[in-house]
């Protein structure tokens, strides 16, 4: 099916607000899991603060116990240990509490990790992939042609992950960060406000540096990706085209080109390496600066007797480390926003692409078809403003074989793809046994149409699974009967494992003729009253064509069959031949009639006849 060159589907435009709204919708869909993850994270945060506070207290209690002249420990929340407790008592209780805290925290952390994993990998990602896949299966071929298989593949793999990144990497992380920063801030403020402000003054330059460098590094990374992808693409091409390279002795050129690309990759990375190696040490120095301030100012405060050593300075030092780490984290979140929005756009595009052809709500059940087909003034274009078929009308009786003849681009394939209703006509209608196709339940209808394409796609599965593709519950006898009807049985038996032979990339390769016969068997298994053969001998050589032509003829008899081809060998026995020229039906009739009328069909026939008579002359 190389004929149609469909125009790109008008891309759905999404504003950032739309995207964010829909992404929030996904989060809302899984709101309980989100809340659980958020709640557990807050518990972990509180527990770690408690742990740190307890440790600080221990230090103060010991110091006070050794030298009562030192600052007494300041217990939080106005709680004080009972007077009968000695310092040692208190230390033991506090230490044990730290251990208990450690165990609880480990357990809650586990729950948090699992809740998040369940939310992302267990819920959001499978849900999105399921929806995408189900949708993809129903989208029109046009979508696949416009987007290309690798882009579609990426949408279901990487883009889905990046879309869910919005929920855990942006929304949850952002909220977590906010809660953490606020809690830490309050905690520090509670210890000594001016010290908090002094120490946190470092945060401003730190945030600035982080954002500056992540903005500076991003284009570098993108460029790096491009260059490496190019290098790998060139590498792959050289392997795939190795025979061409060798036969022209072009290895030195290819090696030179590869080395050039390789040098470019390395040279481009130098800048990234430099930036990265300035960025990391800079953030290190800045975050440690808060400690320097703590030592100088906090030390002075301690000397003045304003804050305790353990519960004050020591706890402060612990909190600062966490706080600055969170600030550096903001740039990761900022990057995730960009990443998830880009990916979400691509995911939603698939979900929002309208189904062009669908069963109408008042569709009727399809009776077993007899195979009477009529086209009534059918006009169709992949792009409605550029029709590919103009005003086509013809009628076919059940059991007739219809040949469709035309040059490349004349609309043969398009005409055939309207019969199973892969597309809907723009003008006119197609009748099947006198009923409009559009009134049928679509799936039921298509099950009664068998199709063999120009280049048959076989799945990397066993021979029998491929034949039974349309009816997985078919018995082995049915499969064998279909194979026999398609003259495929003999060669299948000769394959290493017969019907259980695996085909495809990691299996057995079949010749073009064998593939077409399997495709024919696949179509015949359903015993369709209507059979469509779209240039079935195009990709096989003349000799193989001879092998399969009798199988095709056998298959066509007894059903309404459409066969597109420009090989007269296939067409000449048809009951009626439709000659297409630039999308118009210019001639209709049996071979014997139209071969005598001037036109493209006669020209083609003459080309082949000239070839033959010359040879026959040679024979004579």
């Amino acid at each position, binding site marked *: 099916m190389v004929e149609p060159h469909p125009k790109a589907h008008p891309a759905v435009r999404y504003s950032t607000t739309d995207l964010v709204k829909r992404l929030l919708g996904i989060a809302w869909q899984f709101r309980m899991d989100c809340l659980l993850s958020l709640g557990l994270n807050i518990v972990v945060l509180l527990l770690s603060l408690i742990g740190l506070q307890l440790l600080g207290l221990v230090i103060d209690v010991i110091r006070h116990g050794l030298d009562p002249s030192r600052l007494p420990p300041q217990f939080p929340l106005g709680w004080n240990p009972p007077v009968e407790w000695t310092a040692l008592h208190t230390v033991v209780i506090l230490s044990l509490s730290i251990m208990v805290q450690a165990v609880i925290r480990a357990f809650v952390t586990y729950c948090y990790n699992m809740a998040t994993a369940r939310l992302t990998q267990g819920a959001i990602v499978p849900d999105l992939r*399921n929806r995408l896949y189900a949708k993809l299966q129903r989208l029109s*071929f046009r979508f696949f042609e416009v987007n290309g298989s690798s882009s579609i593949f990426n949408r279901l793999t990487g883009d889905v992950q990046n879309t869910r990144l919005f929920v855990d990497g942006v929304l949850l992380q952002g909220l977590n960060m906010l809660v953490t920063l606020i809690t830490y801030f309050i905690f520090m403020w509670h210890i000594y406000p001016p010290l908090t402000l002094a120490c946190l003054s470092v945060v401003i330059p730190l945030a600035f540096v982080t954002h500056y460098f992540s903005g500076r590094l991003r284009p570098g990374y993108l460029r790096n990706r491009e260059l490496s992808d190019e290098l790998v693409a060139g590498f792959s091409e050289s392997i795939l085209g190795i025979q061409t390279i060798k*036969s022209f002795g072009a290895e030195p050129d290819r090696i030179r080109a590869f080395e050039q690309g390789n040098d470019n990759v390395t040279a481009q990375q130098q800048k990234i390496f430099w930036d990265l190696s300035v960025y990391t040490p800079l953030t290190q120095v800045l975050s440690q600066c808060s400690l320097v301030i703590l030592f100088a100012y906090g030390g002075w405060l301690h*000397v003045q007797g304003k804050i305790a*050593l353990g519960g004050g300075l020591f706890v402060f030092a612990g909190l600062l480390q966490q706080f600055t780490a969170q600030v550096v984290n903001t740039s990761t979140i900022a990057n995730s926003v960009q990443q998830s929005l880009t990916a979400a756009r691509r995911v939603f595009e698939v979900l929002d692409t309208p189904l062009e052809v669908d069963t109408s709500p008042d569709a009727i059940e399809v009776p077993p078809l007899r195979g009477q087909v009529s086209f009534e003034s059918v006009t169709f274009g992949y792009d409605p403003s550029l029709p590919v078929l103009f005003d086509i009308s013809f009628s076919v009786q059940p059991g007739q074989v219809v040949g469709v003849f035309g040059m490349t681009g004349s609309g043969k394939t398009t005409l055939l793809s309207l019969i199973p209703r892969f597309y809907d006509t723009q003008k006119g209608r197609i009748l099947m046994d006198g009923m409009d196709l559009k009134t049928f339940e679509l799936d039921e209808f298509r099950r009664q149409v068998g199709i063999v*394409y120009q280049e048959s796609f076989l799945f990397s599965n066993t021979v029998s699974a491929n034949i*039974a*593709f349309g009816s997985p519950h078919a018995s082995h006898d049915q499969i064998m009967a279909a194979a026999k009807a398609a003259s495929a049985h003999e060669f299948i038996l000769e394959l290493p494992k017969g019907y259980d032979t695996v085909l495809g990339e990691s299996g057995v390769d079949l010749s073009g003729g064998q593939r077409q016969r399997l495709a024919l068997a696949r179509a015949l298994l359903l015993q369709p009253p209507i059979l469509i053969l779209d*240039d079935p001998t*195009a990709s096989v050589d003349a000799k193989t064509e001879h092998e399969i032509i009798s199988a095709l003829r056998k298959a066509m008899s007894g059903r309404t069959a459409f066969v597109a081809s420009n090989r007269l060998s296939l067409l000449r026995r048809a009951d009626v031949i439709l000659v297409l020229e630039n999308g118009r039906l210019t001639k209709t009739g049996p071979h014997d009639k139209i071969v005598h009328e001037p036109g493209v069909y006669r020209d083609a026939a003459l080309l082949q006849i000239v070839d033959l008579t010359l040879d026959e002359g040679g024979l004579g």
Partner: protein
Amino acid sequence: MSEEKRFHSESSSAERTFPRRRKPDFDPRHAITYFHPMEEREADQAPLKWDLIRRILLYTNPHSIKRNRLMVLVVVRGFLIPAIAWMIGATIDGPIAHKDLPGIYRYAIGFFCLVFFTSSLFHFRQRYALELGENVAHDMRTQLFAKLMSMPMSYFNKTKFGRIISRMTSDIESVRVAVQDVAFVVMVQTLQMVICAILMAYHNWKLFSVMLLLAPLIWIVNDRYRKEATHKLRMVQESWSRLTSTLAESVNGIRVTQAFVRHEINADFFSRLLDVHAENNLGAARASAVFVPLLQMKSQLFLGSMALLGGYGALHWTGTLHMDVGDLVMFFFLANLFFDPIQVIGNQYNLALTAMAGAERFFRLTDLKPEWADAPDARPIPRIDGTVAFENIQFEYETGRPVLSDISFSVKPGQTVALVGHTGSGKTTIAALIQKFYLPTGGKILIDGNDLHQITGDSLHKQTGSVQQNNYLFSGTVLDNIRFARPSATREEVQDVINKLDCADMFQNLSSGIDTVVGEKSASLSHGQRQLVCFARAMLADPRILVLDEATSAIDTATEARLQTALEKLLQGRTSFVVAHRLSTIRKADLVLVLDHGRIVERGNHEALLAQNGLYAKLYEEFMGATTLA
């Protein structure tokens, strides 16, 4: 593929112990692709081998200055990291605890200087490591590509494309990580651990010995975690590869799916694959969700027990057991630096194992001896006249399965030879032997009277050219593709060639003429146009010997007639071998060789062969049967 097979037999036992019970859940008829179990895959890790490590290190030799500076930096850093932590403890426990204000300021300034110095050094430590890694990867890529280009065709026929690509991508990448990280990180961390141990033991050996008891525990937990995680990750990879191959085939086979109304069965199957994959993912998440908090807990538990011991030591115990409260502060900052390396080194060890597997495969490829090479005394051949003779040629791809037997024929310069026969009769093999893609196992091929084996492959290939059945085009413009064999050719020369082929008009309706970009799939070009580009490519190269595998793809009759004329122009004035599918080509050949099961059964021109009424006449009838109008 023998190299790959050998590999599988060594693959780790983890692969075998996979639960198989899940498999029957999938009815193979509902499946879209056949399920290939893990044995198909390459091993992820291999044990450390000194031999491999030495070879990897050799790649750092050209960059020895950088490498040696890194060694020094790493050692210094191993001292500086504990120094910073010690300084924090010393400041709190020293001047601050003693309320020594000038001391506090001195220490604060000292601390800042230390941090500044350490970070400045880190700039070089990080940059050199990244650069060294990239340099090594760069050199490996160059070497790999040059090696591949020198491999004979037989290698490419026997090796899967995906395998070659993963040498270039994942394997080199794993070695890069090993070079830039593993060795240096392990050095820093080990030193850091030792220095911390010494500092802690110096401050309070009692607390330290209690702490030491925890170390093996951490190692065991960590080790179990790694094994568990690796195993789970493999399961994730397995279900993922099944998911992706199903997805890829679903996309490529969409026309079949819709024609056969399989979307519901497919969606159902895919959804079950997703369930399995999600389950595996959660399994992997569980492995880390258990162990990571466990490792965190150890440090908290350790701090708790230290507080307890420290409390007793300071407040209760006297004599040798007495402890100073300052030690507690000091240990708080040093202890993590002692414990963290256990985890870090464990991970680096894992990376090292991955690198070993990657390096092993990479070297196996670069060490591969070509099955044959030019004779040691091979000489370049001067301009070829075009006499080609086969003398009793025997050939077999695999021993014991002859493909060609006793092939002898001789061709004069400028003649066209058509090779005719059933699939598998040996036509393509003869074409490959002429281009020296393989060496015959018996007999001699003479070109202008010189034994092909005594001619260098390069000099021969500069004078041969081919047009293949699949019309491979490289990404770039039509122009680039035509001057593939002679990149120096000017635009005019290319135009000239197109004019000579009498087909300039066929490129004119392309969007940008000969500047139209063609991709890997070359969707923008029709079959006929693609073939024409290949003709022009061969014409521009102007080879003395041309090998042509005619395309079988049906092109409409008008185009076919055009191609036929172009082909005749192309064949003029050079010795040509055509694996022929078109009757017109066969009829015009000077010599037709009819092959059957690797032997020449008939020879002569078209008329003579028909008169013989043998296999050729029969083939001809079959051919006619497929095309006659009668």
